[in-house]
């Protein structure tokens, strides 16, 4: 993906040593002799996603994005993908964005969607912590097989809702959201969320 970000066809890697396992897992990787040092290197082809969908804390209408840690490879996704859909907790004004300082500028972003609680059931700090009880429900349904998962989870939370508002009602509405936001009240409240089932 770094190669896609740089606009180059592949990335030479030193940390991957060519092996039978590598050939089996990644037949697309190619070993090569570095023409400068004569050392063995492995070439990894660029991975350029057609579309990247990334949930962020703040965006403005132009597509400037303010991303707060802990993020993982989100900035890399946004730079590597051909098109980027950003869903944001908050849409802020251009003036506010200038004050905040965007993490990534608008020309990387194709479209912005205002989606409060768009990261649920995972966390989007500082707004809300992750929903441990909901993830447990998801896990139980997913572990029961494809049919059970469709009946118990997808039909209820994905196909069975017509809007984000309806989804938020289904997951427990304001009461649940207030609980997920309670992490910032105190350390004890925060820790409680991790034992809440």
């Amino acid at each position, binding site marked *: 993906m770094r190669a896609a970000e740089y606009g180059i066809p592949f990335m030479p890697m030193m940390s991957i040593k060519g092996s039978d396992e590598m050939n089996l897992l990644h037949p697309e990787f190619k070993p090569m002799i570095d023409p400068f040092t004569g050392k063995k290197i492995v070439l990894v082809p660029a991975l350029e996603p057609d579309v990247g969908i990334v949930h962020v804390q703040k965006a403005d209408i132009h597509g400037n994005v303010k991303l707060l*840690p*802990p993020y993982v490879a989100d900035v*890399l996704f946004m730079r590597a993908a051909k098109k980027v859909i950003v869903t944001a907790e908050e849409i802020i004004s251009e003036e506010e964005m200038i004050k905040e300082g965007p993490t990534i500028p608008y020309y990387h972003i194709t479209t912005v969607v205002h989606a409060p609680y768009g990261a649920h059931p995972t966390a989007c*700090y500082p707004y809300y*912590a992750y929903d441990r009880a909901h993830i447990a429900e998801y896990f139980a349904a997913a572990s029961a097989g494809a049919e059970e998962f469709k009946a118990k989870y997808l039909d209820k939370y994905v196909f069975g809702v017509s809007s984000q508002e309806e989804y938020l009602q289904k997951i427990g509405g304001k009461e649940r959201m207030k609980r997920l936001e309670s992490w910032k009240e105190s350390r004890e409240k*925060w820790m409680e969320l991790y034992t809440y089932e």
Partner: protein
Amino acid sequence: MSEKFKVTLDELFVYNVAQTIQDRTTVFHGVSSPIPMTAMYFAKLTHAKDMVYFGGVASSVDPNPPFLPPTTNDWAMIQGRTAMVTVDKIFDLAQKEYTRLKGGQQ
């Protein structure tokens, strides 16, 4: 004289992983790795005070979390950190052989 006491399997794992960490080394754990995370933090608080600790995919150098969360990528893991280094940069360091990957994924 040795004293007998009970430990859980998790505690035993944490202790043994911590023993593999030497002071002044650089360590990193991945996501969903509470045992390596606890072991690294334990090592840093005991025999490896000068180890460089990358707080997993939370991108933190030497974080000082208010508590250890069950997920290893959490707002808690960015508290009190010295610097932010995103995970792709940590892999760059590993490639340069500056990082000795310890613990690993559960």
